[in-house]
């Protein structure tokens, strides 16, 4: 009973590791897979192998993968919903299927960089002053503004593939942060 439970857990952890969308989650699942398989080795009376698996699989390779992941580039996204008075998880769940998941998938599959998404209800000026984000999504009532740099190739790709990336959002305006001054000058 215990044995088949362990083997099923192993199978589930291996599947979750392979099919997970986020690399960091995959690494943690791989570490727990190693820990479980060390337990299985112990159950089958092989303590030497279990010790080696625990040292290599859990200690060494997890740290190595985490360091490698730290060295690859991360794309910093900020979602601003300034209209919201209270801050709770329902608002994040609301945009999960329409914006967060497709954007994460697009960045990971097509651009091969790691997305990192933050959510805030502070104002745009405050957020820009506080942190340098690569890409800012701002919701003002029905309008959705996308802020980014013209020199950023990833931002250009996101705009070019907007139909795939952002679903169910009708009104979208795009703001190029580094060209803002020029357009103001022509207006005047």
């Amino acid at each position: 009973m215990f044995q088949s439970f362990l083997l099923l857990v192993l199978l589930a952890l291996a599947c979750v590791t392979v099919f997970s969308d986020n690399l960091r989650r995959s690494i943690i699942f791989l570490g727990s897979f190693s820990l479980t398989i060390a337990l299985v080795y112990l159950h089958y009376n092989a303590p030497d192998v279990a010790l080696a698996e625990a040292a290599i699989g859990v200690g060494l390779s997890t740290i190595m993968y985490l360091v490698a992941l730290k060295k690859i580039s991360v794309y910093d996204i900020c979602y601003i919903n300034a209209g919201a008075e209270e801050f709770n998880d329902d608002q994040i769940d609301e945009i999960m299927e329409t914006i967060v998941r497709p954007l994460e998938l697009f960045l990971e599959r097509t651009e091969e960089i790691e997305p990192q998404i933050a959510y805030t209800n502070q104002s745009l000026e405050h957020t820009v002053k506080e942190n340098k984000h690569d890409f800012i999504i701002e919701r003002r009532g029905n309008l959705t503004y996308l802020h980014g740099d013209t020199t950023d190739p990833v931002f250009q790709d996101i705009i070019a593939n907007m139909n795939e990336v952002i679903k169910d959002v009708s009104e979208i305006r795009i703001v190029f942060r580094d060209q803002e001054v020029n357009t103001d000058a022509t207006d005047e």
Partner: protein
Amino acid sequence: MPQMSRVIHIIRISFSVIGAGLVLFLFLNYSETLDTPLREYFTMDFFGQTGAQNSVAAIYLNYRVFDTLFEALMLMVSVMEVINVSWRNKHAEQYQFEKDHINRKNNSEIVIRMVGVIYPFVLLIGLYIIINGHVSPGGGFQGGAILATALISRYLVYPNFDLDLHILEKLEKILFLSIVLTPVLYVFMQIQPANTELSNQIYMILMNSLIGLKVFSGLSIIFYRFVFYEGR
């Protein structure tokens, strides 16, 4: 041409299916019952013959020590590959190492404190596993890997490159030489001071410590090379 490649594809798939079927057929029909001469040879009197209380240590340090030599050689060859087939060698002109680039800001305070607390215990359990390898489960490889984990977790706290990898590299080669020499003299040529239990145990502890130090330096070299030389 597409027709051709499709035919080749089908041939390949059928070939692998037939091969897998053949292997499975042979495997499932294999029903020869062997006596257990090898198992008896390895487990009957291993304590009296080798002085190890752990039969695994008896096998990899005495009965089958030839295998251990080539495992040690394999690790050393992979370390040499990592050093010589390097990204840095091809791009030597554009590569420059940032010196004393202290970068503590990105590291989590929790990780730093916890690694500081755990560090001595990790070292202690690594040394324990190496020295107690002939009595309890463990041995040189496992203990060396734990020691290397301790050195690698140092990178999480203090990500600066102030180790001299050349010394570690030389140390590894010298250790490999002594790993080859010790069993050749002690087991193969039987040059023993006295064939007692005590001398056998001293041989076991010596071999385990040598293997542990060698694995420790090899894995540390691989990790620090990857982190500081291969990254862009």
